[in-house]
């Protein structure tokens, strides 16, 4: 059970309070109709899935309830940082 630093609570809390929420910084287009089928497919389904540094989202579901972003190494599972939603990509 990994420990996750919630950037809102400013505390390390246990994983079972959190829900993983997939790759971060995939913004929903303001006008989805302008997307081609290929672009929409990429938005819906294509994910980075790297070995190593991964930008991802978590929600402190059983805590403050906020979604936030994180950079984590997918080989070691160690977090490099977590930061609030809306802050620029780190």
């Amino acid at each position, binding site marked *: *059970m990994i420990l996750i630093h919630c950037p809102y609570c400013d505390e390390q809390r246990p994983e079972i309070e959190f829900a993983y929420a997939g790759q971060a910084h995939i913004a929903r287009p303001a006008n989805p109709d302008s997307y081609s089928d290929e672009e929409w497919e990429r938005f819906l389904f294509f994910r980075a899935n790297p070995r190593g540094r991964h930008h991802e989202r978590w929600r402190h579901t*059983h805590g403050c*309830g906020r979604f936030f972003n994180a950079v984590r190494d997918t080989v070691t599972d160690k977090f490099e940082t977590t930061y609030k939603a809306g802050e620029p990509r780190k």
Partner: protein
Amino acid sequence: MSDNLARTEPVPFAPFIGEGISISLAVPMTRYSLRARQAQALETLLGVKVPKKIGATEEGIACLGPDEWLLRAPAGYNMVSGAGLPVSLVDISERAICLVVEGPRSAEILRTRCPLDLDKFATGRATRTIFETVEIILLRLGEDRFHVEVWRSFAPWLWASLTTAAHH
């Protein structure tokens, strides 16, 4: 609230008393979920002090998230209207019940299923967290006194879980 209809509670009225521990149902109270982008908006509206730091409590108001507070007050509390304002005041008085966990073994019993480090959870703090698989709001009122708020449908499970832990 009603002269006609009786309340039905999901756990026994009789407290559980064990060695170094008692677990009991708190009396009904008024609860509101208060939401706003800034605490000031609520302070202005309610005319009370609202804690700014997540986890802090003040005058019956606990800060649960950056834009979320839980107000707990005696039953019958009159809430102002926030109509038209960029706030959300929602009556959740009956959403949860509160179990009072008290006695020298209270932290030990909560620790059986709650993953938080209670040594670092000082008196006066409040947080939403998890008790095995069930979400709770945990408030520490004293070294040996906790309130555990839990949604009503989960309350029988929580009662059984806490009293089983207290038995062991």
